[in-house]
């Protein structure tokens, strides 16, 4: 019961969060309705808008708010293991994400049936990869929220992601053909949120009609999903470790 209450709280802890969901869904619908996208263009929007920006918007201050107000001391009192607080908050975010993407799928399907516009091919794949990305960013942002004050976790993560993307792009561009290129590529590809790998998964690069030489690559798709889930678990593990080792003040910080 307490677990469910904590999960539910991730949606109602700030008044505007349900509005974020509605606005995001309206953006998908508007994009589909007005711009006649092909499935890949729509998938890219879903991936970046829903997979990257949505978790940042939903997780702003997810732990930091309670730490700042001193409410955290009430939430983590014994015999309640403080790691559970983190877990249920993250699960709450992940469930919200799953519901959000399910609604997005229903929305575009209804629009597709009504307007006859575009095609639904590959949308399911995009929804899955967007949700997996959502989970990695949600975990990272929640972990940051344990150590960063108030709602600065989302902003910090957003700036860090942008900076990392720019630095990676510049480095890889200048290292083209260099002996260090595979090493640097691996460094940016694997420990950070798997934007590139999940984008390939969503785009269908691991299916039969991929632009690459391969045919059906079920093993690659499974590996991609496993890597993403494990990365989420590692980010969450770091957050739990930080949370359980912190001493909290009962008064407002």
């Amino acid at each position, binding site marked *: 019961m307490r677990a469910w209450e904590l999960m539910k709280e991730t949606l109602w802890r700030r008044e505007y969060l349900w509005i974020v969901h509605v606005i995001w869904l309206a953006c998908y619908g508007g994009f589909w309705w007005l711009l006649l996208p092909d499935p890949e263009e729509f998938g890219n929007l879903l991936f970046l808008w829903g997979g990257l920006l949505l978790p940042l918007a939903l997780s702003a201050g997810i732990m930091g708010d309670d730490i700042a107000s001193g409410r955290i001391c009430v939430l983590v009192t014994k015999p309640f293991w403080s790691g559970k607080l983190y877990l249920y908050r993250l699960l709450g975010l992940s469930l919200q994400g799953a519901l959000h993407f399910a609604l997005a799928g229903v929305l575009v399907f209804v629009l597709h049936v009504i307007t006859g516009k575009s095609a639904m091919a590959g949308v399911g794949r995009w929804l899955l990869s967007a949700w997996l990305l959502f989970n990695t960013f949600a975990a990272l942002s929640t972990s940051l929220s344990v150590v960063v004050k108030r709602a600065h976790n989302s902003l910090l993560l957003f700036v860090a992601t942008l900076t990392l993307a720019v630095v990676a792009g510049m480095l890889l561009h200048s290292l083209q053909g260099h002996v260090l290129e595979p090493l640097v590529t691996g460094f940016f590809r694997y420990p950070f949120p798997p934007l590139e790998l999940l984008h390939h998964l969503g785009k*269908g690069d691991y299916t039969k*009609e991929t*632009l*690459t*030489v*391969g045919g059906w690559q079920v*093993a*690659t798709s499974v590996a991609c999903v496993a*890597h993403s889930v494990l990365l989420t678990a590692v980010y969450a593990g770091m957050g739990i470790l930080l949370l359980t080792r912190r001493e909290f003040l009962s008064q407002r910080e």
Partner: protein
Amino acid sequence: MKKKTRVWILIVVAVVLLESGALYVLRPSAGRWRSDAVVKDEPAAHALYNQMIAALRSADSLSYRCSYSQPGQRVEQYLIWLKKPNCFRVEAINARGALTGTLVGDGAHLWIYWPGDCPLIDPEDTNIPREQWSTFYRTRATAVGRHSIAHDALDLGRGTHMLFIDPSTFHGYTDSLQPYLDGVAGRGTDKVGQEECDVIEVSFMNAQRTWYLWLSQRDHLPRRAKQILRGIGTYVDVEVWQDVAVNAEVPADKFAWSPPEGWRVWTSTDPATKLLKAGQLAPDFTLAALEGGKIKLSDFRDKIVWLYIWRSG
């Protein structure tokens, strides 16, 4: 050691093993290579390509089921029977499993017929009453090695596609891409179904087209083929060859057809009838200029206009 510690060690080991497996599968490798340039010709790979052409041409008979697909579209099937010197049969089956048309070559002529309405009738530009759209067929003479089954297969029904490995190669036909072959590179080996295959990449016209071919190590014929066409957009087609039978007995009636009574021959409208007559005013049109802006034909009135129409891909 405490039970709790043992559980944590087990979890960490499992995560490390799982992640190692995932990273091993996701590692960059030649097999995941993405083409973005003309391939450098490798003699060994080029020999495999030549071997495929030779295997196609040296067989006395060949039959296979070709499944054709494009991203986001359902699979069409083409059932193909070929026999020397100039016999062939192609049955096109749409995604719903219905036969849409049959192409038969009896050695001297080809025949195309459809189970329902003739798909070559343009509903918006025909005087034929709706109830008379069926019982049509097409025919013309075919010289050995001088006709393309892949092109003719386009008439087998609405929405049928052009097979990019032209079955006419079996009869000695050389498709128009071959003179523009840039090179062939090896991409290792792979398994298609139970068949061990050599994978090669063939690039044409400065990589405007790329083929990936999975060639059986047993008979050197394709089991899977993928074409990437780079024009204004990028298009991917996949052919999967199944039930491949080389030099198997094919009943003679597969290559015979004559129109049943009452069927009419379909003749396309002669394009010449739609051409402008001397002295007739050309209809005005506007096109985008390469330098930006628009070009209007009427801006060049009383001047000689040279229309140069070209395509890429």
